[in-house]
Each structure stands twice: as structure tokens, then as C-alpha cells.
């Protein structure tokens, strides 16, 4: 395919989630503009309320980048034929996703229960992993697809006994009297990964776009994790942006394993564990028909890792973990 004219203006979409709040904060405080100016480009950071819609918009070309989890990156853009590069691995969920029940005390108690969750999302994956660990399968429970926006209200309803969800909804649900947390993502560390992914072609044609994004991210990280007033102010702002306050935000942050420095993120990206995780994820995705009807088996879509490793079809690589931009950041040569 012919190389396109280098672009000047880019846009990325974000949705409200603790691991992605640095993006709007960076846009508000001028960090985005600072780095964009440095590379002579313009970057628009746009909020979308509906998470799935933001990824759909990215997939159909409405955005050059989007904040999404590893699993959704595989099942929506990659399965939709849009070659996507995971540019920044920001964090993984370390308690931000969980299963909460009013009736069951252990995962084994869930047999025969109906469970409310956003079907085909990371919650679904989390449940599958939890059931797996307890020797149950999805057939043993009834899954009721429930919109994330209504999850908290749904849990208040007397007919709802168990939900699988993420923060901040998770915290709200856990606060309900009589509810118990059965399982959370601390038990599958590193499997639910929050990333910024961009269109591979756009990145190839415009490496400056990637560099600017990496620059923005790690500068914002340093502000966010600042132990003093500066960090507190940043976290307050992010909390308010997501509809809560400093305390609420800090709770969510505590359940998030942030890769504060590029070095940590690079190490995670290059580790063998990531390949294992992605194999679990693609197996789950294939089993649930998420790789599309055209996919004959779970190898249909190739996933590339740093160092040329490919999981699945090497001819059809659509999802790429790329540590190079984070590496440049680690080297301080942005």
C-alpha cells in the first residue's frame, strides 16, 4: 500500500477510566500541546462517553488512536481488519475489576446463578478466568448482559445477585450492604491491560505522532505520581473529571498497577507473560465468536510482540505490541 502524505493533525479518543484519566488532564494542562508543538503537529484529545463507541469510531477511521484494553483491541479493531499498534501500556488492572455478589460467598457458589455483566468485555473474561479456576464453566451460570452505565443501579435491584464490573462502578457496588467481593483482577495480574493503541499505518507514516504521545504520557505520569502538592492537585483534577473526588480517585488508583516509568512498561511488554496472557485472551475471544465469523480458529489473527515473535497467523498480523516508542522515552531521547 502506498505511503500516505504525512499528516499534521491527529485525534485520539478517551473514555472515563482511572487508567486513562491522564489523557484529558494532559490536554487540559497543556502537556499535549507542548509535545505536539515540539513535533510540529496537532493532537486533538476527545472524550467519548460510550467506551465501545469510542473503539468503534477508531475502527472505522474516526480517530487515529484510542484508549482501550488489550482484549478489546484484539476483538474490535484487529478483528475488524484495522492493523493496530499498542503504543503505550499504561497499567494493568490490579483489583480494578471484580466479581461482587449478594448471594454467593465463593466462586463455587455461583453455580446456577444469574450474573450481570457487560457481555464480551473484560468483565466477561474475568468471570471466565474465575470460573475456570473454580472448576466451573460458563454453562453453569446464566449471563445477563447489562450496560455498564446502569450496573450500579442494577445491583440495587432485588433480582440482581451477582455482578462483574470495573471501577468506579466496582467500588459503588462493593459499598452496598451485604455484598461480598468473590474475585478480582489481583488474582490474574497482568491480564487486563489498559493501553493506548494507534493505527499502525498512521504510525508508520508519522513516527512523530508516536513520539509525541509517548512524551505526553510519561510527563503526565511524573506529575501524577508526584508525592507532593503537584501530584495531589493532578489527581484531584482527574478525580473530578471522572465524576468523583481525590479520595475516590486514589482508591481506584490503588487498584491499578501503573507503569510509572517507561522502563517498567518496556519490561512488561517484552516479557514472556504477555504472550501467555494474549494466548488466553485470544482463546477466550475465539470461543465467544469475537474474532469474527471468518475466523476458522484462534490463529486467524496474528499478534506480534517485540522481537518479532508472532502468535497466530504471521500473514495476518493485525495487533502489534510495540515497545520501541516507550524505549525511546526510557532512553530520554524524545
Amino acid at each position, binding site marked *: 500500500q502506498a505511503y500516505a502524505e504525512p499528516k499534521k493533525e491527529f485525534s485520539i479518543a478517551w473514555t472515563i477510566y482511572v487508567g486513562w484519566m491522564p489523557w484529558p488532564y494532559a490536554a487540559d494542562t497543556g502537556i499535549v500541546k507542548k509535545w505536539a508543538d515540539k513535533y510540529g503537529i496537532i493532537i486533538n484529545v476527545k472524550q467519548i462517553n460510550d467506551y*465501545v463507541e469510542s473503539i*468503534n469510531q477508531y*475502527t*472505522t477511521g474516526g480517530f487515529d488512536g484510542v484508549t482501550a484494553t488489550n482484549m*478489546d483491541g484484539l*476483538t*474490535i479493531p484487529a*478483528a*475488524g*481488519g*484495522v492493523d493496530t499498534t499498542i503504543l503505550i501500556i499504561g497499567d494493568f488492572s490490579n483489583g480494578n475489576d471484580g466479581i461482587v455478589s449478594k448471594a454467593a460467598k465463593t466462586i463455587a457458589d455461583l453455580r446456577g446463578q444469574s450474573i*450481570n455483566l457487560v*457481555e*464480551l*468485555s473484560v468483565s466477561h473474561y474475568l468471570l471466565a478466568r474465575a470460573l475456570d479456576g473454580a472448576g466451573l464453566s*460458563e*454453562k453453569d451460570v*446464566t*449471563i*445477563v*448482559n*447489562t*450496560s455498564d452505565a*446502569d450496573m*450500579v*443501579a*442494577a445491583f*440495587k*435491584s*432485588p*433480582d*440482581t445477585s451477582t455482578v462483574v464490573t470495573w471501577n468506579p462502578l466496582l467500588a459503588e457496588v462493593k459499598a452496598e450492604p451485604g455484598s461480598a467481593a468473590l474475585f478480582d483482577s489481583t488474582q490474574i495480574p497482568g491480564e487486563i491491560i489498559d493501553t493506548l493503541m494507534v493505527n499502525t499505518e498512521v504510525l508508520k507514516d508519522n513516527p512523530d505522532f508516536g513520539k509525541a504521545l509517548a512524551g505526553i504520557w510519561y510527563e503526565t505520569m511524573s506529575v501524577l505520581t508526584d508525592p507532593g502538592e503537584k501530584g495531589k492537585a493532578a489527581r484531584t483534577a482527574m478525580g473530578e473529571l471522572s465524576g468523583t473526588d481525590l479520595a475516590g480517585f486514589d482508591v481506584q488508583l490503588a487498584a491499578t498497577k501503573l507503569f510509572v516509568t517507561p522502563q517498567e512498561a518496556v519490561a512488561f511488554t517484552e516479557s514472556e507473560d504477555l504472550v501467555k496472557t494474549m494466548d488466553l485472551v485470544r482463546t477466550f475471544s475465539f470461543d465467544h*465468536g*469475537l474474532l*469474527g*465469523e471468518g475466523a476458522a480458529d484462534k490463529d486467524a489473527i496474528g499478534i506480534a510482540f517485540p522481537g518479532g515473535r508472532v502468535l497466530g497467523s504471521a500473514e495476518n498480523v*493485525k495487533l502489534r505490541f510495540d515497545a520501541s516508542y516507550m524505549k525511546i522515552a526510557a532512553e530520554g531521547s524524545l
Partner: protein
Amino acid sequence: MRRAINIVPGSGTRILLVLLPFLLIAGLYVVVSAERRAANPGDKLLPPITEMAESVRRLATEPDRRSGNLTLWSDTAASLQRLFIGLGTAAAIGLVLGLTLGLLPIASAGLSPLIAVLSMIPPMAILPILFIAFGLGELSKVVLVVIGIAPFLVRDLAMAVAAIPREQIIKAQTLGASTWQLLLRVALPQAMPRLIEALRLSLGPAFLFLISAEAIAAESGLGYRIFLVRRYLAMDVILPYVAWITLLAYIFDWLLARVARRSFPWAYVQEAR
């Protein structure tokens, strides 16, 4: 040269004219879809018609791996059941309240402003309260449909009943009718054709509320499927489902129109000059 207003197409031309815009849209779709495919062979937004046909075939004839049902039909059955219960309940509420408000000045004085206010509340915004009150099961979906369309039905029927000529109401009283008899034999039958017309107008909104309800919490249904597969942008499922919903709504509309004309022929005669 005749005025445009005086040009009446013949029946052949008419059929052509009806088909033309549909064919144009279909043609446009095929072209744009092909273009997008050329740019990205994996494009999901506007799948070619063959692909949609294949998806429909699969959904309509192959049992689902998890439940063993034929997806399209079980979704349709689930949705239609909710829709009909919702429409039926709303129609019953519309009739009872519409007749009461239209007929009794005292009821109208007390309740009309309340219903006017209620009809303005966007139901989607108070979902949490509905969940607590009606749970998250089938009931809440039906309730959302009812809440969505009943205020309109009530107001429309109350207006229709209030528009029954005063002369008839007086006449019935001189024939000895009690309020109840008047309601039963004079107001109710005259409200029926209007109820069907109002239901026809409500079909679109009813489907809308149903789909929204199914998007919020469900295990099956047309809206459920659409929002589920939206997670991986499976437009090859969404578009046929939308077409199917549209077709269903169109068929019900047509059926209701026929039922009304069959059952209430007196309501469809031009007033004699």
C-alpha cells in the same frame, strides 16, 4: 404546461416511483460498501450484501452454540413478547385513563396536568428508580415500553373522547344512560379506532424503548443482539436486524390499519355532505 400540482402519476409510474428511492439507496450502499472494502478488506462498517445474507442465514438456521436456539427467531420471539405485553398494557392504561379523563371533568381537572408533566420526563434518565421498583427482569423492559408510550396514549385518547360531540353525551343521558353505561357503550367504542391509530403511531417509539431496555439488561432479544454485537462492530448482523425490526414494525402498522378498517368501518366513512 400543467402546474406541478396537477400531475398525478399513473399506477405504473407510481410503482416505479415507489421503488426508485429504495433502489437508489440500495445502489448507493453497494457502491460505498465496495469502496470501503477496497480500502480495507477487513472493513466491518458497511459489509457487502452477500455477507449480510450469509449472517442472516447463519442466525436464522444454525443453532446457537451456547443456548441451542436459532438466534434470529429466539431473539424475535423474546422481543415481540415484550413488545406485545408492553403495547397491550399501555393500551389498557390508555383506554382506562383516557376514557376517564375524557369523560369526567373532575378526573380531568385532577389528573391531566400530572400526566402532561409525566409525559415530559425522559424515562431513560430515571432508570435506576425503575430498576428498584420493577427489578431487572422481563418486567422492567415491559415497564419501560409502557412508561414510554402510555402517556401519549392517555392524552390522545382523552382528547378523542373529549371530542365526542356534546350532543351525543346529552342524548345518551336522555336515553337513561348512567356514567358507566355511557363510558361502556358510547365513549369506549368510539375511542377504539382512535386507540388503534394511536398504537400505530406508537409502534416506532415502542420499538425504540424496547431496544433501549434490552440494551440495558437482557439475555436475548433484538435489541440485546444489536448492542451485544456492537461490541465487535458486526454490522453484518446489526444492519439485517435493523431491517428486520423495520419490517416488523411496518407489518404491524399495516395489520393494525387493516384491523381498524375491518372492525370499525363506521369510523372510516367520509362524513356525508
